[in-house]
């Protein structure tokens, strides 16, 4: 005969659906409890509380110990460059202490190195929510955001990192973060922001090395005047530094102050004669200076000769274009007609006319074949300067 069980208490019953005697016996009396019972319940609660407290303490201890072991292992692996294994260990550490800042940051750094940016970013967002002023977290977030193309977000995180709290070497780290921000802005072509950042940086710049770096960034950010000023100052404090003179030369060159640039490059080369790059720049300066008809110390005849040379070299550049030359037929004829003799109306007027003709030919050359790289670099620079 099969046994039947009550669906509630699972005690045996006579047949399915029969009243369970056990359940009936447990039915409530509807009477209020005696005080002793109430006291007993509270005592039981207190005992359970104490037991839970003790169990929780043991549990937290084990957790902490396990977390510590994993973090220590992970840190070692990370230092050894084994980021995959380090990430795995950091994850294990987080299983035992989800709110462990150190482990989550370590995991984010390992993931960053592994190129798992999305996951690293999510962990860092957790961390930044918990500590918005953490410079380390913000710096890493900025780098990830920059790599993911979120430039504005990256800039914001860099700024927070710059003004945030660094656990060690705050000055140095702040400086590094600022330069990283400047480099990001340079990559994005935000020259104005770069100049602004550099101006702030300059106020805090601790030494000449940093100032020199700032000057070079200023140069890249199309602020050659400020770069030249800074290099000028640096040449006074570091008169034996070839690099500073080279920088000054570049700044002056960018300002189209070719004479000053030539002087600076010469000085740099004198200090470091083996620098082929500077030598090349110096030669270029010389060629520009020899071609430019507007230098004051050049006599009238020489000025005229230079202006004619400009025209001839511009014509040669124009002729490199294979199509459309007929548009400049008249100018070409005028250029070909030049024979070295100063026209009526005076030397100065002839020089001006030649310069104007050279400019027209040069502009025509740029219009007709913009994809063709000019062969005559000094010519381009001189005409550019003259156009200014």
């Amino acid at each position, binding site marked *: 005969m099969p046994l039947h*069980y009550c*669906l*509630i*208490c*699972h005690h045996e019953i006579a047949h*399915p659906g029969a009243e369970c005697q056990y*359940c009936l016996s*447990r*039915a*409530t*009396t*509807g*009477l*209020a*409890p*005696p*005080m*002793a*019972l*109430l*006291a007993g*319940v509270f005592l039981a*609660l207190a005992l*359970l*509380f104490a*037991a*839970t*407290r003790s*169990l*929780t303490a043991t*549990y937290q201890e*084990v957790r902490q110990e*396990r977390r510590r*072991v994993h973090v220590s292992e992970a840190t070692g692996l990370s230092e050894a460059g084994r980021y995959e294994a380090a990430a795995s260990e950091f*994850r294990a550490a987080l*299983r035992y202490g*989800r*709110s462990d800042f150190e482990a989550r940051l370590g995991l984010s750094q390992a993931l960053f190195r592994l190129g798992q940016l*999305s*996951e690293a*970013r*999510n*962990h860092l*967002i*957790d961390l930044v*929510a918990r500590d918005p002023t953490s410079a380390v977290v913000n710096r890493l977030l900025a780098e990830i955001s920059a790599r993911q193309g979120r430039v504005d977000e990256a800039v914001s995180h860099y700024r927070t990192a710059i003004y945030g709290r660094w656990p060690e070497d705050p000055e140095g780290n702040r400086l590094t973060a600022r330069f990283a921000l400047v480099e990001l802005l340079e990559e994005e072509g935000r020259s104005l922001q770069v100049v602004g950042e550099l101006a702030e940086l300059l106020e805090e710049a601790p030494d000449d090395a940093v100032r020199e770096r700032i000057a070079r960034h200023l140069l890249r950010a199309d602020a050659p005047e400020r770069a030249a000023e800074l290099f000028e100052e640096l040449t006074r404090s570091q008169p034996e530094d070839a690099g500073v003179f080279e920088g000054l030369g570049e700044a002056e060159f960018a300002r189209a102050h070719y004479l000053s640039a030539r002087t600076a490059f010469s000085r740099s080369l004198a200090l470091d004669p083996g620098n082929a790059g500077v030598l090349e720049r110096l030669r270029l300066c010389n060629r520009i200076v020899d071609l430019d008809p507007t230098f004051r110390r050049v006599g009238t005849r020489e000025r005229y000769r230079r202006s004619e040379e400009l025209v001839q070299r511009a014509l040669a550049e124009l002729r490199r274009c294979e199509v459309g030359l007929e548009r400049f037929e008249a100018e070409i004829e005028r250029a070909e007609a030049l024979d070295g003799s100063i026209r009526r109306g005076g030397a100065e007027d002839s020089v001006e006319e030649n310069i104007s003709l050279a400019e027209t030919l040069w502009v025509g050359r740029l219009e007709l074949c913009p994809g063709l790289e000019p062969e005559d670099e000094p010519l381009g620079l001189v005409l550019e300067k003259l156009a200014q």
Partner: protein
Amino acid sequence: MTALSRTVTRLRDLGRFLATASRRRATMGETQRFLLLSVLIGAFSGLLVVCFHIAIELLAWNTVHSQTHAGPWRVLLWPPLGAGIAYALVTLYFRPARGSGVNNTKAALYVSDGYVPTRSIPGKFLACTISIGSGNPMGPEDPALQMGAGVASLLGRLFGLARRNMRMIASTGAAAGIAAAFNTPITGVLFVMEEVVAAWNAGVLGSIVLSAVSAVVVVRSFLGDATLFQVPRFLLTDPSELLIYALTGIVGGVLAAWFTRYVTRIRGWVLQLKPVARHSLPVVAGLVVGVTGIWAPEVLGSGYAAIESALHDQFPWRVLAVLAILKLVTTSLSFCAGTPGGMFAPTLFIGAMLGGSIGGLAHLYWPFPTSPASAYVLVGIGTFFAGVFRAPMTSIFMVFEVSGTYAIILPVMIANTIAYMISRGMQHQSLFHIIGAQDGLELPSLEDQRESPVRIVEEAMNAKSGRVLDGELAAEAGLEHLRATGLPVCLAATADGGWLQIRRDQLEEACSEGRGRGPLRGVPGAQPAAKLYPDVTLDTALKRLSGAAILPVVSRANPMLLRGTLTLDDVLRAYGLAEEGGSPEAGGDGPPASGAPG
């Protein structure tokens, strides 16, 4: 010496006081006792759940997640061993701890006057600790719910609650248990109202809230107040993303319906097996879990760590999809085999991984900007849950509470509601309902109530005004009208906006006494009639109809504006229990009387 004697005297006094107190009955009223009990239940349940949580973790750290002896053999062998021991415990020693905690609690509410066997508390605790701690893919919430209900029932009996309150006390404990397990007070309350009480019962709501809150306070004081998941900041990237979130809901809903259908079918088949085969199934299921766990340890246990990893974009979409499938298979097997443990955590896991895989795919192929896959993991968490347990409100609030973020409220609401509706459309009954039926329990559900809409007076009332006369009309004209229409009773409107109910015999008596020319409102014995409004439920109307043959239905804006009348026959007709038209005696309409108010 004097001090000693004074101490002895004091101790004697204390002893006398305690003895007197223990003999005396407490003077607390039933409501006070119920509220005090709610707090006590919350505290006891919170403490139990803390111990339960710690026990599971400690066991898991020494079995499948062992730091020192990790290896495939451990992962392979622990789940079947744990499942076997846990199953043996509930089969041999703790039979009341078998089955679904939700259904057991519902049974206490609707069948056994709130009685939940006390043995179910240690039974659930031990069996589920061993089962989940050894890596079986089940959740701790359902057992926590039953432990809470068990504690509540025990305390209710000790405190001698009246039968009416005893019925409700189990649900109070259930709310405490689930709120403590999830560390989510609102979810605890909503789930119990939606799934256990299966009604929006305001009477019990206060005590449920009280116990849930006190349980969560206790849990937080021991385990901290961090949410179940630490979630990165998510935002809706593009409005077109809502379509993908809707798709997440559709997939979750369809899968939930299939899951419910096939799991209950397999379970039904398992129940038909011979005992030897049936008793060996948990071990077999555990072995499958072990084999799976070697390659995909994420499916072991509740899987919350894996959900959190997915929330941080650890897995690509393919891995997420595979994990969802593996968890679906292993959980179904373990559940059908009877391995102790709950289904809450697995449903969250499956939904999360499913959502994440859809999000990952969308991130790659959707033509518009999308959020990372992890945002879909968060939205997906509630979809499968809503589809399987048919608790849409709970699923929405649960996502907010377990994540602590309200940033993606819109996607969560869309996805969960769609999942719920699709699952409901494809599979009429919920998982708990079918399981209860398989175990021989026909338990009510909010789902049934949703299916049968509440009927209101407007649907039953008689819109014609033949039964209504002007209160100023002469009594003999009124009597003539009733005789002509054959009506036994009529309503008379008075000038001050009131209504009188006058029977034919009262009119006849008034006329025979020579008051036939007087107005109807002056007829002796005329009773003031209660007013009804068109939107009032028929249940309420029936209560007002006791002692009245007819009631006026008036506008809420103007009590003088009659919308119709209601009699018992009208109500019966609305329920299809009386013939259409009815007899005049029962209140059917004759021709309208002159002088009847509009």
